[in-house]
């Protein structure tokens, strides 16, 4: 197991380097002169442009610039936000807990709803319950998170007054955004768990377990579910990516001070260092989460470790 983890960590290094190269290059791919991004509102004279160019190191060869960028990033220096003048790393790290809270509670909710629906649909295969569960799933997959968020705000905040519509803090402000965010993932998981269960329930070892006289519930939960969940775990990594993306939208709609809203605000206000820093750290975080998921996958399915 340790060997496997070491192997995956080594594989990770080039990806992280690649991410840093891409975020570094963003600045140079901007159409027009990148100096304009840093000039602010003051009129840009030729002298001032040259000065800014020199300050940013834009007058040096590209690979020297990258070396410096990467060196500084490794020391935790991602530059300063153009508007706030605060270190980008502080701004981003402050926003992390909010996003983590939102995405992790949405993930937990999605697993709870998705796995339950999936099992029920598989056990009731071909009945009305199966149809209803899968109808929910196809609707859930087709519902954009910005629409479900607005519908939920309208119904549960404005009409029923059960939850506050926006803001952060306390469980009551987490329920709506987490549920809206969880909807799509729970639908994807429900479909996956259902088809996994249906496949497993046909296997001989299930028939054997039944033939030995094991109770129905024990067969389903101990023998079938554990095996049906294996593909679900890989899917979790992908779903977390989706949730992270969805957080961009839910955080904006529910006015939560997280990474997603930070990225959108930074783009809208043309704060380039902040955009770069947010994208870099979000991608690295996502890669690390996926590493964790892969390790969990290898832990439950030994075939992966030795495969």
């Amino acid at each position: 197991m340790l060997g496997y983890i070491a192997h995956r960590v080594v594989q990770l290094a080039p990806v992280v380097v690649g991410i840093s190269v891409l975020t570094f290059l963003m600045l140079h791919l901007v159409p027009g002169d990148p100096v304009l991004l840093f000039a602010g509102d003051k009129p840009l004279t030729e002298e001032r442009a040259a000065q800014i160019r020199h300050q940013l190191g834009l007058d040096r060869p590209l690979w020297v610039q990258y070396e410096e960028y990467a060196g500084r990033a490794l020391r935790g220096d991602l530059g300063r936000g153009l508007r706030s003048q605060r270190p980008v790393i502080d701004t981003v790290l402050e926003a992390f807990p909010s996003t983590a809270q939102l995405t992790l509670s949405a993930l937990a909710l999605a697993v709870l709803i998705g796995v339950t629906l999936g099992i029920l649909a598989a056990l009731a295969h071909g009945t009305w319950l199966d149809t209803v569960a899968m109808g929910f799933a196809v609707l859930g997959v087709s519902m954009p998170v910005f629409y479900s968020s607005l519908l939920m705000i309208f119904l549960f905040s404005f009409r029923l007054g059960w939850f506050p519509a926006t803001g952060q803090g306390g469980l009551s402000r987490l329920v709506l955004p987490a549920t809206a965010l969880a909807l799509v993932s729970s639908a994807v998981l429900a479909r996956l768990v259902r088809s996994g269960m249906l496949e497993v329930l046909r296997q001989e070892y299930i028939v054997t377990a039944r033939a030995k006289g094991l109770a129905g519930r024990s067969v389903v939960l101990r023998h079938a579910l554990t095996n049906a969940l294996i593909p679900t775990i890989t899917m979790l990594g992908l779903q977390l990516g989706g949730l992270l993306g969805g957080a961009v939208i839910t955080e904006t709609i529910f006015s939560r001070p997280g990474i997603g809203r930070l990225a959108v605000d930074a783009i809208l206000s043309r704060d380039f260092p902040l955009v770069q820093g947010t994208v870099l750290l979000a991608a690295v975080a996502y890669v690390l989460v996926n590493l964790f998921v892969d390790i969990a996958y290898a832990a439950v399915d030994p075939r992966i470790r030795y495969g």
Partner: protein
Amino acid sequence: MRDGLAPPGLAGVAPRPVAQYRPRGDTIRRLARSRSALAGGLLFALIALIVLLAPALSPYSPIKANQRMPLEPPSAAHLMGTDRFGRDIFTRVLWGGRLSLSVGAVAVGIAAFFGVPFGLIAGYYGRRVDAVIMRAVDLLLAFPSILLALAIIATLGSSLVNLMIAVGVAGIPDYVRITRGAVLTLREREFVLSARVVGCRDDAIIFRHILPNILAPVTVLATLGVASAIITGSALSFLGLGIRPPAPEWGNMLADGREFLEAAWWVAFFPGLAIMLAVLSINLLGDGLRDVLDPRLRL
């Protein structure tokens, strides 16, 4: 990280026999037998038709303001009510569909145009070519797709074309992976080996013998891909990073309605419903296509 060897759902599945050759009429007949696919197909055809005919069907101008009747609730004169500038929402939903649906279609075109050839090359040549292409794909996959699209928009600026590029590029990795996986199961099959033995050139083998046999999974992916591209595209417009007002687009109309959610629900409700119905119809159709063409494909 995923190792890029196989699409996630297919990881543990043994190479499968390629679907038998079936005349096209058969596919359509089998598709029509699935009630949900039929419903999805008809609904999508209807939406596409209405949207295409928008100039003829819409009773008002999609852009011109009518300050005398802002935020009117739905009525016989304004089926879906009016927005803050007194513009007819029904009209704007019809016109908005043209932009939202074309973003979805063009983005999928971009993703498939770049993704499929790279997948073919990676799968067919293997070894170092494969390693290089798949590392690049891994790198793109390190960004959740909307983050990648955001980064592209942040770099290029927001416009209709850049929106299409951003959503399209974010979709490329899926096409490379699915195409490559399908090619791998074909590469050692007898008809490919015999083509090689009789001296066919690589490009002829790839385009004449392999490509037609991988169209099934690519078609399924592209169909379902239009649905997710519509969602991503309208999400970016919703955030103010895609198509800007006053041009009507479902995402930016929804963003507009967000401000009036409490007082005038119809401004947000109908554009959102339009997105949902369009996406739902494509998903139903795509699910049906998958069941008919390639049942083991998990997308």
